[in-house]
C-alpha cells in the first residue's frame, strides 16, 4: 500500500475509535480496551478486504465477519456504522433499553452483524460452521473471525480449531487480538495460553504473526492467506489494549469500564488531534 492509502486507513480507524469511546461513554458501560486494540484490523477488513455491501447485508455470497470476542461489540458497531450499515448517530444508543444495539452483537437486530456472540469461543465455532457451509455450497466467500487472547483459555476454541483443520477450512481467516491483558490482569499470569502461534501450528493451522497496528503487515498477512490451500488461517496480531487513547493503553482496567464524560472528551480530543495531523 502507498503511504496515502495507509494514512487514509489510519484516519478511518481513528474515526472508528471515536465511535467506540463515544458509544461506551454514552452507555456508561461496555468494553473499550479490546475494542480499540482490534480497531485497525476491523478497519482493514471492512474498508479494504471484505466483499460486502451495506445495502445487502444478508447477501449469501458476502464475506462474513464473526466477532467471537463479542464484548467488543462497540468496535464492530462503530466499524459497521462507519462503513454505512446504519447511521453513526445511533452508536450512542448502545446498550440502551430502546436501542437495537445490544451490549453483545445481535445478528437479528443489527444490520451487518453476521453472528450473535458474547459467550466466548462460540463465535469461533460458528465461523467454522459458516466456512463448512461455504465449502458444501462451493461458494467463494471467506469467513473472518476475531478472537481474544484471553478467549484462548476456553476449551471450545481448541475444539473448533481441531475441526477447522480436520475439514481443511482454508476459507477461514482468524485474528487473535493479542493484547496480553484480560479482566484479571496479564494473560500470562491469569492462565498462560503461550505459545499461541505454536499451539495453532500444532493444530494444523497456517499461522502468521503480525503487528496489529501496522496496515502493511495486516495486508501482507491477508494476501499470504490467498496463496495457501488446505489449512485454516491464524493471524496472531500483537496489539496494544486501549490503542489510540493514551490513558487506556496497556491498562487491564479499561477492559470493561466505560470512560466518564471528561475522560471521553480527552480521548476524543486526542483522536481529533491525530486525525487533524494526518495530511492526505
Amino acid at each position: 500500500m502507498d503511504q496515502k492509502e495507509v494514512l487514509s486507513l489510519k484516519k478511518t480507524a481513528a474515526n472508528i475509535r471515536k465511535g467506540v469511546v463515544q458509544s461506551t461513554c454514552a452507555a456508561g458501560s461496555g468494553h473499550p480496551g479490546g475494542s480499540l486494540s482490534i480497531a485497525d484490523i476491523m478497519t482493514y477488513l471492512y474498508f479494504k478486504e471484505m466483499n460486502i455491501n451495506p445495502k445487502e447485508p444478508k447477501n449469501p455470497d458476502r464475506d462474513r465477519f464473526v466477532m467471537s470476542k463479542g464484548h467488543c461489540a462497540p468496535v464492530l458497531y462503530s466499524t459497521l456504522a462507519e462503513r454505512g450499515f446504519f447511521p453513526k448517530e445511533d452508536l450512542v444508543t448502545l446498550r440502551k433499553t430502546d436501542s437495537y444495539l445490544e451490549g453483545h452483537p445481535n445478528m437479528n437486530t443489527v444490520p451487518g452483524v453476521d453472528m450473535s456472540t458474547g459467550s466466548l469461543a462460540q463465535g469461533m465455532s460458528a465461523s467454522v460452521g459458516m466456512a463448512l457451509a461455504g465449502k458444501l455450497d462451493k461458494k467463494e466467500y471467506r469467513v473472518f473471525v476475531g478472537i481474544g487472547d484471553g478467549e484462548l483459555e476456553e476449551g471450545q476454541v481448541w475444539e473448533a480449531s481441531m475441526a477447522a483443520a480436520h475439514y481443511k477450512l482454508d476459507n477461514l481467516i482468524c485474528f487473535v487480538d493479542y493484547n496480553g491483558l484480560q479482566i484479571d490482569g496479564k494473560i500470562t499470569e491469569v492462565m498462560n495460553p503461550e505459545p499461541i502461534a505454536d499451539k495453532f501450528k500444532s493444530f494444523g493451522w497456517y499461522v502468521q504473526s503480525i503487528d496489529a497496528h501496522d496496515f502493511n503487515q495486516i495486508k501482507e498477512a491477508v494476501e499470504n492467506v490467498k496463496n495457501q490451500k488446505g489449512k485454516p488461517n491464524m493471524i496472531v496480531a500483537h496489539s496494544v489494549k486501549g490503542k489510540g487513547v493514551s490513558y487506556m493503553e496497556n491498562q487491564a482496567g479499561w477492559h470493561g469500564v466505560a470512560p466518564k464524560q471528561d475522560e471521553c472528551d480527552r480521548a476524543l480530543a486526542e483522536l481529533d488531534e491525530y486525525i487533524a495531523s494526518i495530511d492526505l
Partner: protein
Amino acid sequence: MAGNIATRAAYGDALAALGVDERIVVLDADLSKSTKTDAFKKKYPERHINMGIAEGNMMSVAAGLASCGKIVFASSFAIFAAGRAFEQVRNSICYPGLNVKIGATHAGISVGEDGASHQSIEDIALMRSIPNMAVISPSDAYCTTFAVKAAIEHDGPVYLRLGRLNVPAVHQENTRFEFGKGVMLRDGTDVTVIASGLMVQYALEAAKLLEEEDINARVIDIHTIKPIDRDIIIKAAKETGCIVTAEEHTIVGGLGSAVAEVVCGEYPVPVKMVGVMDKFGKSGNPYELLKLYGLTAGNIADKAIEAIQML
C-alpha cells in the same frame, strides 16, 4: 414397520427419507451408529459431518451452518446435547433463533445399563426453559417421522427427544399429527392421562387397568411439549376433572410441570405426576429400571385413582 422399533431408529430412517432436501445437513459427535444418523450418512455422505467428541463445538458449528441457510440436525445423546452443550444451545442457537434441530437420543432412564451418567432426566426441563426452543418427545415410529418433518417445516430451533429402547406403535399409519397439538388416543370422562415418549404405551395400559375399576380414562399423547397444546389440556381439566401426567423424566420442570402451568392458570384441577422423583437413575435392565422408578401402567393407574379421590 412401525411396530417395536426405537424412536432413534425411526429418526435415522426419517432423516434418510427426507434428506433429498439439500438444505439438510446432519452433524454427529462420534455416535452416528447409536443416534442412527448413519442411515442418512449412507445416502448423503457429503452432508453428514462428524464433529468428533465435542458437543459444545458441534452446537455452535450448527448455528454457523444454519446462518448460511442450512437446516441442521445436530445429534448426540440427550445428556450431552441438552446437558453438556446447554449454553451453546442457548446462546449460539436459540438466542438468534437459528434453524437447528437437535436430535437427542438415549433420553431417560431406559438407556439402562450405562447408568446414571448417561441417563438424561432433566433435558425437557432444560430445553423448554429456553425462549425460541420447541420440544417434541415422540412416542413411536409414526410420531417420530412426523416429528422430523415438523422440525424441518418449523423455522427455528427444535429439540427432538428420542429413546434407545424399542417401543410398540401406539399410533396408526394414518394418524394425523400436528405440531403443537396433542393426540387423543382414547376418550374418557373420569380422568385424563397426559403422556409423552415411551410412557404413552403405559398410559394406554393404565386405561385398561382403570377400566376394570369402572374408571373411564382419557389418554392423550402430547408429543409437542413446547409449545404445549393448552386447549387439549384445559378441555381435559374441564371434562374429566383431574389429570395424571406420565413422563420418563424428572417431575421437576418436565411435562408434568408444563401441564400444571396451564392447569393452575386456566382451570385448576388435581394434577398427579408420574416421573422420576427427583433422583438419579442407575445401571440396570431398562424394563427393570422402569419398574424400579415407578414408570409403569400400574403406577399411572394408582395416581389416577388418587387424583379422582381428591375431587
